[in-house]
């Protein structure tokens, strides 16, 4: 970490997160990744939804759009589609991305727009003070599941792979160096990248604590996982209660991104043809003669 200078991505504003929140780790990991990539803050747009983690854009020096609850992905895609020169990163929490916004996630995956989506997954609704989330474990006691959650959680890694995402990874907020390497690869990847970041909520999630994760986490690269093999990826993605893999589950380098396929975005989006020629203006109505 000492090799890169993250200052150019820091702002003079204290995050609104609880002390010990996993989102600090993600913030640091993301700033480190941006520094490693040597990007200019003005070339980056960070788009978020609503929730604790969705305050992220305010704490990074870059352009930001803090959109509605669940709508980070459509907003981010709109930005990328008209200005493909920008590095667009969407971010938010599990309620935002896997609950209210999950429809957009599925379509962003299959569309394969060249953006990186980071979900700070704490398996709880934090900002609304501790309700069950789409990734809450079965048995988790929350304000809305006082007897233990009896809905099965969504598996974001499997959802992303099966929906056609071309880069799917999991990081852990206590492993910022490992995380920043993965974010670098995700941003460099040409296509839609999902990073499910384990970001423990120290206030409301009493089950999935740092300690709980530390006892279970292992790195996929340490066991010789082949991320280009979708069957291996799916197999590893099903692991949870006993052993929890972090690292890159899946990469599909063969599927072109939406921006490469769309004839206008490929030519620069809104820069493809900034103005119509006088002849084009004259001729445009002739199709109605």
């Amino acid at each position, binding site marked *: 970490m000492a090799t890169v200078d993250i200052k150019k991505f820091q702002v003079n*504003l204290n995050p*609104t997160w609880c002390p010990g929140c996993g989102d600090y780790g993600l913030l640091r990991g993301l700033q480190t990744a941006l520094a490693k990539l040597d990007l*200019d*803050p*003005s*070339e980056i*747009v960070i*788009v978020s939804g*609503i929730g604790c983690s969705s*305050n992220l*854009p*305010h704490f990074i*020096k*870059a*352009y*930001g*759009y*803090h*959109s*509605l609850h669940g*709508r980070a992905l*459509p*907003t*981010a*895609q*709109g*930005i*990328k*589609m*008209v*200005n493909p*020169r*920008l590095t667009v990163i969407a971010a938010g929490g599990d309620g935002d991305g896997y609950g209210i916004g999950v*429809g*957009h996630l*599925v*379509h962003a995956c299959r569309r394969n727009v060249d953006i990186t989506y980071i979900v700070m997954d704490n398996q709880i609704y934090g900002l609304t003070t501790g309700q069950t989330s789409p990734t809450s474990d079965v048995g988790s006691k929350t304000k809305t599941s006082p007897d233990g959650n009896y809905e099965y959680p969504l598996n974001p890694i499997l959802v992303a792979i099966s929906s056609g995402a071309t880069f799917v990874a999991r990081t852990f907020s206590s492993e910022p160096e490992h995380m920043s390497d993965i974010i670098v690869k995700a941003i460099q990847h040409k296509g839609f990248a999902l990073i499910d970041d384990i970001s423990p909520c120290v206030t409301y999630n009493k089950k999935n604590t740092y300690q709980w994760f530390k006892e279970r986490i292992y790195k996929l690269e340490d066991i010789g996982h082949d991320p280009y093999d979708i069957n291996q990826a799916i197999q590893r993605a099903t692991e949870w209660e006993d052993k929890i893999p972090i690292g890159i589950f899946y990469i599909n380098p063969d599927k072109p991104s939406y921006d490469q396929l*769309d*004839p*206008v*975005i490929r*030519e620069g*989006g*809104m820069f*493809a*043809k*900034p*103005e*119509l020629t006088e002849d*084009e*203006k*004259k001729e*445009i*109505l002739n199709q*109605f*003669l």
Partner: protein
Amino acid sequence: MSGKQEVIIRIAGSAGDGIASVGDVLSKLASRSGLGVCAYNSYQSVIRGGFVWLQIRISNNKVFNHGDNPDILIPLNQSEYERHKDSVLPGGYIIYNEDKVKVSNKREDVNYIPLSMRALAPQEAKQPVMQNMLLLGAAVKILNLDKSILDDIIRKSFGKKGEEIANANINVINAGYNNVSTVSDFNLVKQDKKYYVITGNYSVAVGATLAGCKFYSAYPMTPASSILHWFVANAKKYGIVVKQAEDEIAAINIAIGAGFAGARAMTGTSGGGFSLMTEAIGSAGMTETPVVIINSMRGGPSTGLPTKTEQGDLFQALGASQGEYPKAILAPKDPVSAFYMIAEAFNLAERYQIPVIFLIDFLLSNGYYGIQSDELDPSKIKIDRGEILEHVNGDGYLRYKVTETGVSPRVLPGTKGVYYVAATDEHDEDGVLISDIYTDEAKRKKMMDKRMRKMNYIVKDFPLPVVEGDSNSDVTLLGWGSTYGVIREVKELLQKEGIKVNHVHVEYIYPVNKEIADILSKSKKLISIENNYTSQYTKLLRMETGFEVQNKIVKYDGEPFTPLYLLKEVKRYL
């Protein structure tokens, strides 16, 4: 000139009978002959079956609506013959395929033109579905229109590859054309005028493209879908990013992203999709992101009448989203207005950094209108992108700087040396959130005032409605949006009867220019005309100005007003 100067033709059948293609060909034939044309397709949301009719009005002069009862009826099956036979005007014609339609108890005052597909159609074109072309050929003969233009239209529509099919069609048309001996008194005279045949939807799409629209997103929804189709077909040529989104929530948020990034961005839908968009429309007001939203209204509520017309969404547009934020609502009166006003919608959106709602409806969206070519002049479309800074010196920049007009100059993402966050939470001038700061009323009030102040300036940019006819009249007809054509005709019909009447048509709906009430208060008898149940515009007017319209005509049966129907309704107040 003697003889009839105009004709109304109604083609009735089931979906899949090829009604639209007859309408399309006839519209083109009329416009290529330099004649005025207007067509309305009363179709249903079915691909096959159902009851469908298309009415097309052709005239030596420009036509503003599709008229009332037909001079010529072309029923394509027995049930549609029964349904429409009484509507044919005295002296009119019923042209039908006698193999399919059996006629008994003939009316004395109508000319029956039976043709037999079986006997007349050439061998290569015996398919029952081609009866529409046989009957079209007969209609063209009765109308004394130039058949060589028709042949040319058919050839062009099938292209070089479809030469065989084109010839088959022309042969069927000839069979119809040559087997009618009736001499009619229609006197449609070929004129040296250049007409476009365009729908309101296409007019909006072309106007937007000329206004520099670089992004369009939508989820398919009748009656707005053909805007999406036009953009898809023309995207590559004119450099427009077009996205069919997974739903309307995505469509509007993608458009907002595009608008934030600096593209002139637009999305289009109908009432149901608009409902889904409303939260995001408010967010564009909060983040001060320019975006244009088209709502092509259909009969509501709920799924309602998917393929019928209504002006029922004005209050929905007005109340779209929680909270209060600046916005503009525009409603063009016809395709010509739509062409220019959509450019103005973009200008307002960017000048004031607001969402602009563009209200059209089924009638305007999908009606075919003959528009004289010089009425749509691309050189008259002016682009004003508002204040966008290209160079800024770093830290001093405030994205939401408080200004007199409430408008803070924008910097687009990608501009060097600057950064800011646009947030849907309440924020200060620098974009930093103040939403959760305990009791900072002063900042909240300052930012609300800044945004809402834009409304005072938006309304000043709005042109006042023109009073058509003598300002000192006994009767004033008031309308908004797509009812213009029919109200205009009713005004003329009343004038012919010696009644002093004028017409005020509002297109810049919201914010309400209070001077509209001053104009209307001069009228001796004011009658509003709206295609909805609750007379929504008059409610808005009273809400904003205190001015009450006493006489209201409303229609909410799914069909648009027609001239004679409206004339009768207006006369009830005279």
